[in-house]
Structures are given as structure tokens and as C-alpha cells.
């Protein structure tokens, strides 16, 4: 079997007396959509923050493409191919949609310690940005201020920004957050499309989306992975049902 693209080994993090990540192991294989589910407070957000380099773990290791990135700062992880979208939309609201993406393109196309030549003269940045937007069906809004977009399009731009980094692994933190049914369908369609070309690690509460998209599901409870496997196996796992799914389904009913 191939080495995993992302591997988390016995990761441990506590805040005071609260253990947020409890000797957690996780392996994301190349080419898969790997969903991370779990009840609130299970430590999903803390885990994502550690993978992205926002929070330093107390112990354990994070390996990306075979390289130990545990001590690497966040921006350097992005350069290695770790792209992410945020649960709370973080776009450049005052910039146009095109300029939003162009900033992402600029990050991976040479140094930005350049002080003289106007960015506007760099056709390649705008062209690359337009290509990304066309691919995501957002070409029509390229010239609009990002802050003026409707919520669903802002969420789409959020994902587009991560994608414009050309990541090897795309981390999606609740991509469906705050979306209505119709918009959620469109986003699910988009992620299904991205699945063709990049590995995805996704945190999502929408079980419908998770079971439609994921190749692998890991269930996080109390800071540790209690089960990991194919969607059907997870659905049938009695421990998972007791810890999480059952509770959700009861709540939904």
C-alpha cells in the first residue's frame, strides 16, 4: 500500500486540564476524500489547527508527503501543498473576486518581495486567476467586490482561494457551513468535481454530504479517532452509532 499523503502520529494537545487531542492517529491516502466527523467538542477544530500549523501540539508528529512538518510554520506547509478553507469565511472583502484569486496565484509564483513593478502589469496573475474562476463557474463575478457576493458565492470563493494554491491536500473546514439546501447541493457538486484532482480532508456536519462524498470517514470523539473506514462500515459500526450517529439521527428525527 502507498504511503499516506498526510499522517498524524500520536498527536497530543491539552489546554489546561482539557485534553483536546488525545494521542490521535490519522492517515489520509492520496486521491481520497477523507471526512472527519464527530460531535461538537470532539477536537476537530483543534486537530485542523495543528495540521495547518496554527497551534503547536504538545507531542506527536505530523507528516506530509513523507516529511515531518510538525515544527514547520503554517505558510511553509502551504508551500508544500497543504491548502485550506476556513469554517468562517476569510476572503478579501474589499478586493474583486479576481484579485482575491490573483493573490493566491501570486503566492505560488515567485517572490513577493518586489517593490517596483505594478502587479497590474503582471498579466499572468490575472490570467491564472481567471482560469481558476472559469473552472469553478465563477467567471461572471470576477470583477465584483468579494464582499458584495451572496453568502453561497462567498463560500465558493473561500474554496476557490484554497484551490488556487494548487494544493496536494485540500483541507475543507465545514464547507457547507450556513448554507441552504440548494446552495449545499451546488457545493457538494463542486467538491465532487475537485475530488478528481486533489486529495481532500474535510470536516463536515452535514451527514448527507459526508456520505455522498467521502471515500473514508474517521470518527473523532474525545480527541481521538474511535473508528475509521469506508462509509458503509462507519454507518454500521455500533460504537460510532452510539457515540455520534445515533445521537444525530435522533436529533434529526
Amino acid at each position, binding site marked *: 500500500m502507498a504511503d499516506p499523503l498526510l499522517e498524524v502520529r500520536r498527536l497530543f494537545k491539552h489546554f489546561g486540564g482539557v485534553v483536546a487531542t488525545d494521542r490521535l492517529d490519522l492517515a489520509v491516502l492520496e486521491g481520497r476524500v477523507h471526512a472527519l466527523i464527530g460531535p461538537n467538542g470532539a477536537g476537530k477544530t483543534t486537530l485542523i489547527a495543528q495540521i*495547518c500549523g496554527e497551534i503547536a501540539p504538545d507531542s506527536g508528529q505530523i507528516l506530509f508527503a513523507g516529511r515531518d512538518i510538525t515544527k514547520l*510554520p*503554517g*505558510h*511553509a506547509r*502551504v*508551500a508544500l501543498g497543504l*491548502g*485550506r478553507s*476556513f469554517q468562517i469565511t*476569510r*476572503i*478579501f*472583502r*474589499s*478586493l474583486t473576486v479576481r*484579485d482575491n484569486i490573483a*493573490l*493566491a496565484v*501570486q*503566492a*505560488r509564483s515567485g*517572490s*513577493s*518581495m*518586489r*517593490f*517596483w*513593478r*505594478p*502587479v*497590474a502589469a*503582471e498579466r499572468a496573475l490575472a490570467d491564472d486567476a481567471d482560469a481558476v474562476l472559469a473552472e469553478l463557474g465563477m467567471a461572471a463575478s470576477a470583477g465584483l467586490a468579494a464582499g458584495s457576493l451572496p453568502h453561497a458565492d462567498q463560500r465558493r470563493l473561500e474554496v476557490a*482561494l*484554497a484551490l488556487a*494554491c494548487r494544493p496536494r491536500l485540500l483541507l475543507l473546514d465545514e464547507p457547507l457551513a450556513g448554507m441552504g439546501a440548494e446552495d449545499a447541493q451546488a457545493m457538494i457538486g463542486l467538491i465532487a468535481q475537485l475530488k478528481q484532482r486533489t486529495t481532500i480532508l474535510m470536516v463536515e456536519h452535514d451527514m448527507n454530504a459526508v456520505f455522498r462524498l467521502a471515500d473514508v470517514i474517521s470518527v473523532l470523539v474525545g480527541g481521538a479517532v474511535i473508528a475509521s473506514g469506508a462509509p458503509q462500515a462507519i454507518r454500521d459500526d455500533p460504537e460510532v452509532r452510539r457515540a455520534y450517529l445515533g445521537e444525530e439521527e435522533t436529533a434529526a428525527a
Partner: protein
Amino acid sequence: MRMRLSTSQLRPALIVIAALAFPFLAEAAGGGYYVGVMTRVMIYALAATSLNLVLGYGGMISFGHAAFFGVGAYAVAILAQEGVTSAWAAWPIAVAAGAAFALVIGAISLRTRGLYFIMITLAFAQMLYYFFVSLRAYGGEDGINLAARSRLPWLDLRDETTFYLLVLALLAGCLYLLRRLAASRFGTVLRGIRENEARMTALGYPTYRYRLVCFTVAGAAAGLAGALIVNQHGFVSPSLLDWTQSGTLLIMLILGGVGWLYGGVAGAAAMLLLEEVLSHWTGYWKLGLGLVLLFVVLRAPGGVGSWFARGNTRG
């Protein structure tokens, strides 16, 4: 569109012509005193513009910017006392000193955010203030005099008009550099960081590095302004580094328009000319300044720059 373009190009051209003609007209009209006043305005404009780079473009609320201004001034004064009077030698050293202090102070301060950043920059500036207060060899609390203005080949800076024109050229040059910088890759990154730093990190930008470079470049420009102000006043004392001086630069920028290319110029002109006019009438001129500031903050939060509508990057 064509019309608007031409007026937007005409206005700066007119301002430049007026600025070039001013000293000659003032001398002719017997108002030579005002040449010095305007020189001082332009030097403060340069200092406020360097703060604009940090605050308006970089989004960092520094409350210790006068430190770099003062360090530049002291560099020239100390060198002069030691016999180095050439502007070619002293001014670049003042610029380098401003940059070096900004690099060190920035490297530490930029690890903090928000209120902590304000307080730590203030603390560093006060440390430098007390350092110069205790620097007996160079005047201590009383400051030191600059025996004569820096010397340049061909130009006699003792001539008010010559000095005025040199300051004008340096200010214009710095504004041009700032404009280039704002539109460059670096400027675009700064804008991104100002708006959403977490996203910039997630795009792969080492944001700390960019903010530090911004802070250092601004320190260099403030150092140049310091070199000029000591030449203008012929004197420097620790009060040039005091926190009230940092506050003055902030007020200028708020008056003029934070993040607007000419915000520092507009603010320095508004504040110093207001001081000039009001202080003729009353010793309580700062009350008038306070009222104007209140009005600007409440009614025109973009500063006087927002009255010119277009071009304010904060829009």
C-alpha cells in the same frame, strides 16, 4: 472618463508647480519666514507619510514612530559634533539608523498584536527617549545644537529656498516610491495582510516577514525626515522622540487620511498651518486643534483626504 483622468492628473501637476514657485513668491512678497514654515510642514509630511506606510498600508498601529524620527535627527547631530558634516555621509547614516532601530524594535514588537503592539512600540520609543535624556555627552535632556546645516557639493543648504527645494524633492521622491510600492507585489501583499492575515498565511505568505520589511522601510523614511528636521531646527532634543511626538504624527495622519497616499501630507499641512494660524490668536490653539480633530473623526473619518473622494485606498 478622459476628462476625469485629465483633472486627476492636473491637480498634482498644479500642486507641484505651486510648491516650486512658493519660495520665490514668498521671498518676493517679503514673507521669507513662510519658506521655513513650509519646509517644516514638508518634513513633518514625510514623517507622517512614513507612519502611513506602517499604519495605513501595513495596518500596524505603531505608537512609537517618533523614535525613528528622533534617531535620524540625533544621528546627524552627533555626527556633526564629531566632525562629519557632509550630507552625503550623515543623511544615509540617519536613514540606516532609522531602519536599523525599526528592524530591531519591529522584530520584537511584531510578535504581538493589537493593543499589545501599541504598548510595546510605545515602550520602546520611551526607552530611546530616556536613553537620549541620559546621553550627557550629547546634551542629555537639553539636546544638542547643530552648528550648521549639513553640507552638500554645489548646494548651499543654509539658503532657505535651496533647503526648501531639496526637502520638496525628497518628499516628492518618497511619495513616488510609496506609490510604486503600494501598487507592487509587496504592496498587494500588505493590503492582503491588513485585510485578512489568517488567509494570507493560508495562502502561503510568511506575513511576519512582510510586516517587518514594511516597518523597517518606514523607519528608514522616518530617519530621513529626522535628518531633515534637525537641519531645519538646527537643534535636537529628546522631546523629538517623546510619545507625544508619536501622538502628533498619528493625529496628523488621522487628520489627513490614513491609508491615502497623500494622507500624511494633507495632515501635516492641516495641523501645522492650523497651529501657525491659531497660535497667533491664542495660546490655547490646541483647543482649536482638538475641535477640528473631533470634527474630522466624527464627520469625515477618512480624514480630509476623503473630501477629495477618489484615491483613498481605504475608500
